[in-house]
């Protein structure tokens, strides 16, 4: 059975027919076609599916789609242009490239959403604060070192840009 739902994602309004048992992640990936958010476990364990619901990092794989109604959803695709002109990558996205923080890149979208939320609240995070903010996102490639470097670099660039 499907419901016709209106969703706000990355500033766009989508009217979509969604199976009623779908999660937010399934809706994003398989109904709307925003495949940036990843499914690593489907149980809320790995964090690869992290998106923002009204600015708060949320595990979309364990969020029923009805939880997202009347709320602003933001995904990794919606970080582009958020801090600059249309199409410009978020300083975090650029820093991840510069620092080698994305190896296989599969955890990256979720990590970016957690890290970007941290930087919205805390413009001068310590390495320990960054580790805490990312503790719900598993990365199997990097050992986290380059990821933390990248978040520090982005924080510096965001501060100097203001």
């Amino acid at each position, binding site marked *: 059975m499907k419901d016709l739902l209106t969703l706000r994602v990355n500033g766009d309004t989508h009217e979509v027919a969604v*199976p009623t048992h779908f999660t937010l992640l399934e809706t994003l990936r398989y109904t709307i076609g925003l495949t940036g958010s990843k499914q*690593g476990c489907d149980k809320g364990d790995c964090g690869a599916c992290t998106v923002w619901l009204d600015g708060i990092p949320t595990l979309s794989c364990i969020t029923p789609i009805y939880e997202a109604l009347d709320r602003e959803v933001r995904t990794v695709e919606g970080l582009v242009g958020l801090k600059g002109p249309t199409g410009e990558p978020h300083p975090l996205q650029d820093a991840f490239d510069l620092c*080698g923080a994305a190896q296989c*890149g599969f955890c*990256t979208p979720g990590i970016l959403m957690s890290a970007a939320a941290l930087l919205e609240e805390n413009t001068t995070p310590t390495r320990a604060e*960054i580790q805490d903010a990312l503790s719900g996102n598993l990365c*199997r*490639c990097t050992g986290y070192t380059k990821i933390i470097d990248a978040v520090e670099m982005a924080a510096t660039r965001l501060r100097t840009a203001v």
Partner: protein
Amino acid sequence: MNPITRVPESPEVRESRDSSEGQDLRVIGQRMRKTDGLAKSTGRARYTDDIVLPGMLHGKILRSPHPHARIISIDTSRAEALDGVLGVVVGAEMTTPYGIIPWTPDEQALAVEKTRYIGDGVAAVAAVDEDTANRAIELIQVKYEILEPLLDPFEAARRTDVQIHAPKKSGHAPKERSSVGTEPKAKNGNISKIVKLDFGDIEGGIASADVVEEGDYFFEGTTHTPIEPHCAIGQWEEGGASVGRLTVWSSTQVPHYLHRELSKVLELDPARVRVIQPPVGGGFGGKSEPFDLEFCVAKLAMKTGRPVKILYTREEVFYSHRGRHPFHMHYRVGATADGKLTAVDARTLLDGGAYSSFGLVTTYYSGQLLTAPYRMPAFRFDSTRVFTNKPACGPKRGHGSVQPRFAFEVTLDKLAERLHLDPIELRRRNFVGEMTRTINEMRVTSNGFMECLDAVEASSDWKSKFRKLPFGRGVGVAGSCYISGTNYPIYPNKMPQSAIQLQVDRSGRVAIFTGASDIGQGSDSMVAYVVCEELGVPLDYVRVVASDTDMTPVDLGAYSSRVTFMLGNACIDAARKLKVMVQEAVAEEWEIPPKRVLLAGGRAFDGLDTGRQMHIAEAFNIAEAKYGTLGSVGSYNTPRDVHGEYRGGTIGASPAYSFTAHVAEVEVDPETGFVDVKTIWIAHDCGRALNPTIVEGQMEGSAYMGFGEALMEEHIFKDADHGRAGLHNAPSLLDYRIPTSVDTPELRSLIIESIDPEGPYGAKEAGEGPLHPSIPAIANAIYDAVGVRMDSLPFSAPRVWKALRNRNFEF
């Protein structure tokens, strides 16, 4: 950013180096961006599960609930009758046995006669959506005759009344009583492989030793857990010019081997099979052989005429496994009073799980890769791999050599203590050297191990810490070596191991066609850097077309740390052929010798008059006018004489070896046994860092993975006393703990460059070697901290607490 240490070049290395290597490098060695870095950080990169094809169906695989059972019958009629189900497949439709090692083909796409572990695939369905597919597999009725499962490897080695596989001739019937109790000449289908090799005079070496350290070690099994679950899509095209053509997209590390096995099992002409590997969300060895889903999507696509996708659940990823074998090891090592090794004697039982996988190689690697970086006058190993009714073990990062390295490096620590030697000094005294052969006849070229020891000793402030820190705090050291690719391919052939094709556009844009598999390690970026270096084009002029068997030349895959060394050399070969043409054409235009034409920074220059220059596109156009369409091919094959002249002497041979040393600093809570690893200093000889950022990423990721295995990871199964026998203990990312950002210690990368004479610009591997020492370094640090020896993994709080409680309080 940490500095890079360059190893002083010896005359031997200099002499053997290709004379053309004297060039000034402009791109190689720089901290460049990756070609796919921004695609991954913006969510644009399309992994296999991100692909949706018109009319695509969803598949699911029904799996055995029994660890060991005979299949009596399978009734799929109710599933086929379910509305929305378009196809069902069972094992009887794909009976050709396969296996990644051509000598041990003991798997079938779906089980035909028997299931050998909980999770063995039995049947698969394709339906309009995932929910319908899930309902359909529940409607399939399988009648099983339940057989006794063997979960304990020692029991499996002894028992001939319960046989997991039918006994075969080769390797299954030991001539003499094996060290694990298999009766002589008793055909035992539970024995997967036996390897016994000895070099030098073992008993003489032990007899002449002043100290002999003997002990038992256990390495628990662990698994890869890439964050991307395995996924595959099959598409079948019928009619017209593409009559009977199969395409499979898969999150594989080995598109070429998958191509071969698909063709074999599905009985299709390989010219009609295409394998495409999209970006892969991590592998670590867990995607380096064919899996049931790839055969099932292909067969179901052929049966239904529609594209079919199967995505493993996380639970299925755990059951598909192919991870680190549990090793039961017994080591006996002798040394003289001044710390020189006299003999190394190793006996190992490998718990292989249900199928062979890479097990033949694992069994060899359990000994063959131990003979450097230390000189051993005598070495013997006796390894037996057995089948058990658990998911098959296979290659995980540091294939087959992480476990023996743990046992051996802890043994060295014990020897150093008995001899009152600093453990770093003991390792220095046994250095095998460069441009040499090991006791098992492997050729070693460049070797920066001594510089690795120097680097970790200095950076960790070792001398002021070792045996000097307060109780509860300690440091430990360990070393290792690893191959830069296997010298011989999995199936014997004389063709190149790696190849590149280059294509040039009139705009100056260069396309690189490569069969290599970028699984996050950066192979796409690596070939782009080589082309930028050689042809002088900027990075954004380079496009990499990778891992599509219809489009790209064969590369054997992302395993055994082979890609940078082999593909890098192939790319240099291709790029230099093109470079010569461009130089000659421009030289003719400028009426100067070709060697004066330099290609760099997007331009062609006159080396003696840099005012004379042109855009690189113009240089390419001049060359195209002179030679016709521009393009080139390059390939790499391994040197011939680098292995041992004995049966198995080619396994473990590599064109070059990397070397690593770690120091770990830990704090152990004596009340709880909790081990807090503070810092790991990682010094790694990667030959040359083609991009130091990527090399450091490999070093840190390796040390992280070793740290996780050391402290928390256990890929274990329930026995009948603790639930259902053969059931995975924790098949989720919550219960199978891997380190989070707050668990992971500070990781300090120290790059050592020994400039290998045969590596691309001197490079060797960096992706697997740096994992090895982290585990024994942590074990040795725990001893320094609280005086207990941890000879079994993992060093979890309950085990350390128990060891503390049981220890002799004389410390």
